[in-house]
């Protein structure tokens, strides 16, 4: 055992490192290189032509790209905030239930089992202007006379996509916040009530600080796969109508595989990678801060 021990964690982590280096790090370096070339799939020889940062410069002046970028950030902001709020509400509803909590918890997890592609399909079906559940219900109830073109009009399509995204990911927040609520000791709440706090004050200053790290775990997990919105958009509208729901990821896919402009697509992909990393690092730091705070207080 002597002399072996210091390198044990290194040896244990080695397989993970090798796989990740081979499948993630090296390809990413390759794609970084090709973002400096005019590489086209149809003309392999362009892979060896170095053009510096010309791809990045043309992206900067590309309005389609910035629309997609802005739309992606907007979607993530709306979705993450609403998911957090709805998840908190849902967790508190379920926590209050006196009977059948187990079954409620199982039902609550239901959307998590759906793959993004299924979520997209399901909402494409429900929001279909002709035979969709939403329009049928609205017309039967007499709320709307005409069929609402959910996936055909730009703004409505964005709303429909946001709803699909929120429906699918609220469960993650609800589950983790519920775990926090259940793990929470009851004494501080009782003490706060005895001291005359209103329900809102109890929630704001006792419950919420305790539950916060759990919400940040959910945020970190979500930020790891923000790109799953790609699947949803791909199947629901495929970026349409006329590019009005194009997100960063669908734009990258279109540039790379439909237009075959790999070099340009790789340059765009780097923006989307940086966006994802920014989200993850931000929430990871929040998580760490919340953890130390809890450690100090409880």
């Amino acid at each position, binding site marked *: 055992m002597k002399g072996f021990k210091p390198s044990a964690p290194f040896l244990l982590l080695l397989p993970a490192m090798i796989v990740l280096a081979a499948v993630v790090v090296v390809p990413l370096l390759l794609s970084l290189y090709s973002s400096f070339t005019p590489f086209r799939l149809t003309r392999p020889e362009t892979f060896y032509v170095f053009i510096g940062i010309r791809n990045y410069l043309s992206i900067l002046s590309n309005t389609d790209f910035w629309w997609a970028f802005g739309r992606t950030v907007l979607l993530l902001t709306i979705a993450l905030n609403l998911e957090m709020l709805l998840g908190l*509400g849902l967790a508190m509803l379920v926590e209050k*239930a006196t009977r059948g909590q187990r079954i409620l918890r199982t039902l609550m997890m*239901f959307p998590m089992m759906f*793959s993004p592609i*299924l979520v997209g399909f399901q909402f494409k079906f429900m929001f279909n202007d002709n035979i969709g559940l939403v329009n049928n219900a609205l017309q039967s109830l007499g709320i709307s006379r005409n069929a609402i073109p959910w996936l055909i009009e730009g703004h409505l399509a964005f709303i429909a996509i946001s709803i699909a995204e929120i*429906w699918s990911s609220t469960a993650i927040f609800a589950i983790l916040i519920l775990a926090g609520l259940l793990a929470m000791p009851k004494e501080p709440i009782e003490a706060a009530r005895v001291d005359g706090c209103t329900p809102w004050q109890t929630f704001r200053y006792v419950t919420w600080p305790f539950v916060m790290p759990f919400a940040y775990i959910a945020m970190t*997990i979500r930020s790891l796969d923000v790109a799953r919105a790609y699947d949803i958009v791909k199947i629901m509208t495929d970026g349409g109508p006329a590019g009005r729901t194009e997100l960063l990821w669908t734009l990258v896919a279109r540039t790379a*595989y439909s237009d075959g402009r790999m070099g340009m697509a790789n340059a765009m992909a780097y923006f989307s990678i940086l966006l994802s990393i920014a989200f*993850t690092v931000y929430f990871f730091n929040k998580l760490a801060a919340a953890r130390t705070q809890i450690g100090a207080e409880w």
Partner: protein
Amino acid sequence: MDENSSARLKRRLLGVVYRIGLFLAMLTICLPGLWIVISSLRPTVEIMAKPPVWIPQGISFDAYVAMFSGIGKGGIPVIEYFRNSLIISVTSTVIAVAIGMAGGYAFARYRFRGKSSVFLGLMLTRTVPGIALSLPLFFLYVRLGIIDTHFGLILAYVALNVPFTIWLIDGFFRQVPKDLAEAAQIDGCTRWQAFWQVEFPLAGPGIASAAIFAFLTCWNEFALASQLTRSVSAKTLPVGLLDYTAEFTIDWRGMCALAVVMIIPALTLTYIVQKHLVGGLTSGAVKG
């Protein structure tokens, strides 16, 4: 007396509001899925009917029969897709869990320099969006000749799952007290034996749920699979679902049926692991 009864009324009213809220929330969660199941069992005429038919007049399994009766009838080789999905998901899960166990054990049991930055680095590899990763992988796979093969997709999925598997398994090993393995070693076990006979069985349920989680990630993945597979020999179910939309008229009932086939394994497995999953993700949040 009057105050008493008004307070009671208020409480009862709040109770009713609470129940309605809970009911609406659960309805919103369950309805889309149920609608898919119902639609897959109705005749197409009923789905297309105007004005809508709300209550199904009869149940038919035609969509499922058509789907599994091969290319000739349904148009989509579902059986092949199902087989591809199963092979790729199971193989990559087994490999990812083996690698994840080694890594998770290292994080849970050893102190080493730069531990938290290594951990963050692992997580960062997971943040790369599938579609961004698919660009260089597509190029490399074409060069290496492993595009459109099971092997290529398995390799990609192992890398996709390793970071998260390490996170989960790390949490589960932390829950096993260190003393137990040490006691076993004092009693004459080697570290290797102590691991397999004491720590592994105790962390077993947790590792199983990490495995199921990895399986589901593979089973549901679309962005990579849609670019790295081209033909029946490697396409997975999520890519297959898109086959239906590629046609000029969308076969809603067939798609619903395929969606049900996709969701059933996921549903069963998630139900089994739900308890451990939450435990694994939050361990360390309260216990430090």
